[in-house]
């Protein structure tokens, strides 16, 4: 099986080389058949990589330990869900996932454009093939996922317990889909530059792919944040860690790209800016893939120095230098067709939003790479922390949310006073009312940035609400439809536009959650004995009793031992009352030859926090526990002395007794408790954004027909008027 898989990848590499050659030859000699052939080669490549990927999945599912990477990241007793997803926790597996997604995206994009853009497509094919060659060559020559052992080991390592969380397993494919998806608009932009077809054709052809990539990437980032919040024991969702930043940067420039291309479509402006943005986005996506593996920045994620550093850097440099040279050579072809008429116009709001997004991206880039920069400049490596990032990103985020309210409704070209009044009178009034209500009724004024953010959220939601209200009103007046029908049809007929509105409402809700939870969180770290009580925020927290579970893990991670606590929580003014059950999972390590002996090894491996959260739209109550295992040292030592030579079954009984000892004679435990107001709105906002993006992406069969008929109608009208 491994041989077949290796062969698939090797033949895939040859196929990609052929596709590049055929596409270029076909383009230079204008031979259609060669170009078609290159497209078929890219389809074949997708087939080959899917086969290789499938074979590897089979190896994971059957726990075939002759595969090196299966041994590394799975084992026979790993739960099935984590067997399937264990592949992309390895370097080899994640490279294969990259190639898989790239080949599928490429095939889909080339199929979608098979009858259009005849000049540009062959060059785009060559670019996509070139990217595939790079990643396949890594897979074939450096990091083969099909390396096997002649003598398979008896058992596998299993999947890293920290990664055993559903969000964590979907997160890498989502993120990679985002990274890879941006290679499609990038390839077409390069093709358009080479053929001097620098109009909006390449944008229209790849708009959907850019939006898909953006959606996946955003969803991936959200899942990572959710994992951090609900699996790691620190209670936050974002730490400005280099690898988090690396995934956010291409999303920011991608967001800027999605907006600025509209200006090129409508007005023929910003051409240089758009190609530069997509090049930047793709390079940042490559950098994001690379950073996780490189070990050049200190991060919990940068796992050891990898051998891929040099080829990756060379590839990124090639892409960057090649693209910049191409843009410079083609500058005369990228002249704007129009000028900015007024600063008060949608074009200029989009330009401003682009500058802010790129500004945020630059701030994050500078902060992330600061250790390298400072070492180059001063000779000592230093780093900047979250306060530094927050100090810049907070004001820029406020500006972004403000623009998210203005951009969708301000007029193109030049906004008149009447237009502004019609678009913003009600939203500004509602935002002012929000501000007043917050000042009078809540303590929101304690944090000025949060207060501004709440007001801006009100503004954006009012803008979106007003648009929906007016649209529904118009349809009701015109067609006499009932409000729900009118709303449904309104959105269905203008999916891109209303999808965009929904995304803007989502981002406002997301920032509402960020602002409220970061400014008004109550946090308390405390050590309690069973029966003791403490206060957190407006809650009284009581440690009722400890729990100890043996071979009975509720969260499906396969952990053998779990210690936890039953916590009673009560609101100080009576009313709300609930119970939480935070826990900690323990995994075994070694073979019992260590200092803690046969029984100690079960507590010596990885341990993971199992957070318990009471989710709520008003506030989350978040709790993690760190049991103190020092009380178990004596019983473990005694068990080692007396029972180390017993057979396996009897040892299990002894271990169960030790575990139960924690429950019977409980030591104090350390708890971290967070009461975060409205933090759930981060996930709700993210969900709304996803919904909006899907709405904008949903294929409209009717729209295309309508466009065609309206083009005919217009032509007919022109000819009639001429006659």
């Amino acid at each position, binding site marked *: 099986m491994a041989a077949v898989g290796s062969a698939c990848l090797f033949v895939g590499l040859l196929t990609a080389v052929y596709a590049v050659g055929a596409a270029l030859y076909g383009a230079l000699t204008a031979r259609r058949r060669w170009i078609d052939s290159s497209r078929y080669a890219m389809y074949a490549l997708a087939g080959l990589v899917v086969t290789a990927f499938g074979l590897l999945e089979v190896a994971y599912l059957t726990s075939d330990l002759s595969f090196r990477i299966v041994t590394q990241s799975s084992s026979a007793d790993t739960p099935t869900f984590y067997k399937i997803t264990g592949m992309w926790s390895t*370097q080899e597996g994640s490279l294969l996932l990259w190639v898989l997604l790239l080949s599928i995206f490429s095939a889909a994009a080339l199929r979608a454009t098979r009858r259009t853009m005849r000049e540009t497509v062959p060059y785009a094919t060559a670019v996509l093939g070139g990217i595939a060659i790079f990643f396949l060559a890594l897979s074939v020559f450096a990091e083969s996922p099909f390396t096997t052992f002649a003598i398979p080991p008896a058992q596998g390592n299993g999947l890293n317990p920290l990664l055993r969380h559903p969000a964590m397993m979907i997160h890498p494919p989502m993120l990679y889909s985002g990274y890879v998806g941006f290679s499609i608009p990038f390839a077409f932009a390069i093709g358009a530059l080479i053929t001097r077809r620098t109009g909006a054709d390449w944008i229209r052809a790849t708009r959907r792919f850019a939006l898909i990539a953006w959606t996946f990437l955003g969803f991936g980032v959200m899942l990572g944040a959710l994992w951090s919040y609900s699996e790691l024991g620190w209670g936050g969702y974002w730490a400005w860690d280099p690898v988090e930043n*690396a995934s956010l940067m291409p999303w920011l420039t991608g967001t800027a790209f999605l907006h600025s291309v509209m200006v090129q479509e409508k007005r023929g402006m910003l051409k240089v800016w758009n190609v530069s943005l997509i090049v930047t986005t793709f390079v940042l996506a490559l950098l994001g893939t690379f950073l996780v593996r490189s070990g050049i920045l200190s991060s*919990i994620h940068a796992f050891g120095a990898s051998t891929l550093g040099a080829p990756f850097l060379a590839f990124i440099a090639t892409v960057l230098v090649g693209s910049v040279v191409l843009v410079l050579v083609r500058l005369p072809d990228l002249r704007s067709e129009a000028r900015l008429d007024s600063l008060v116009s949608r074009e200029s709001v989009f330009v401003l939003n682009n500058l802010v997004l790129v500004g945020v991206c630059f701030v994050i880039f500078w902060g992330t790479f*600061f250790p390298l920069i400072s070492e180059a400049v001063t000779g000592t490596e230093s780093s900047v922390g979250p306060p530094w990032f927050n100090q810049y990103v907070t004001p820029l985020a406020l500006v972004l949310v403000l623009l998210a309210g203005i951009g969708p409704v301000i007029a193109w070209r030049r906004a008149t006073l009447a237009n502004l009044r019609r678009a913003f009178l009600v939203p500004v009034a509602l935002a002012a009312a929000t501000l007043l209500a917050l000042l009078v009724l809540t303590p929101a004024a304690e944090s000025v940035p949060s207060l501004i953010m709440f007001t801006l959220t009100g503004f954006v939601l009012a803008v979106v609400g007003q648009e929906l209200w007016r649209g529904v009103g118009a349809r009701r007046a015109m067609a006499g439809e009932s409000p729900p029908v009118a709303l449904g049809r309104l959105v269905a007929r203008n999916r891109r536009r209303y999808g965009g509105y929904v995304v803007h409402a989502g981002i406002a809700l997301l920032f509402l959650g960020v602002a409220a939870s970061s400014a008004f969180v109550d946090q308390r770290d*405390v050590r309690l004995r069973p029966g003791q009580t403490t206060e957190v925020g407006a809650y009284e927290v009581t440690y009722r009793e400890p729990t100890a579970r043996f071979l009975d893990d509720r969260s499906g991670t396969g952990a053998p031992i779990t210690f936890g606590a039953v916590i009673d929580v009560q609101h100080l003014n009576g009313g709300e009352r609930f119970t939480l059950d935070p826990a900690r999972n323990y995994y075994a390590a070694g073979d019992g030859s260590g200092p803690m002996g046969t029984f100690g090894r079960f507590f010596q491996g990885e341990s993971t926090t199992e957070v318990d959260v009471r989710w709520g739209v008003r506030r989350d109550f978040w709790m993690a526990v760190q049991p103190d295992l020092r009380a178990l040292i004596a019983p473990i030592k005694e068990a080692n002395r007396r029972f180390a030579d017993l057979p396996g079954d009897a040892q299990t009984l002894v271990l169960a007794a030790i575990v139960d000892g924690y429950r019977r004679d409980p030591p104090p435990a350390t708890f971290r408790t967070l009461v975060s107001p409205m933090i759930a709105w981060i996930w709700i906002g993210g969900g709304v954004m996803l919904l909006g993006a899907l709405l904008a992406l949903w294929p409209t069969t009717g729209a295309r027909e309508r466009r065609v008929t309206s083009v005919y109608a217009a032509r007919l009208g022109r000819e009639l008027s001429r006659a």
Partner: protein
Amino acid sequence: MNPRRKRKVRAVVLLTVALLLAGALVYTSFSAATEAATPSQLVTAADAGRSYELTGKVVDGSVERRGDDGLRFAVRDRTGQTAIPVVYSGVVPDPFREGREVIVEGRVRGGTLMADRDSLVTKCPSKFSEQKGSPSS
């Protein structure tokens, strides 16, 4: 103003704003930065009152719990035996263990690194060293 002059003014304003922002970025990053240091660097020369980001490995047998959520341990050079004691409080990351690589921030007082609350970061263990983690902490 004629349109050409207007565009020129706009460009100058925009560039000035960008330059000012970039200047602030550079200035604040250098002044707010925490210097990275190894245990041997801190043992031989550490400015009192200056914040450092210590990287190294947790010395075997050095981890000791204190009080509510306190921790004492020693960090040694990645290759070498020079070690510095660390006093820490706050969240202990799940992968924290003796022999593992950690990053912790704090100030040196009396030959001990008094760590900032919640500043401890633990790198993933070597058994999973080739694994991809997640882009989120």
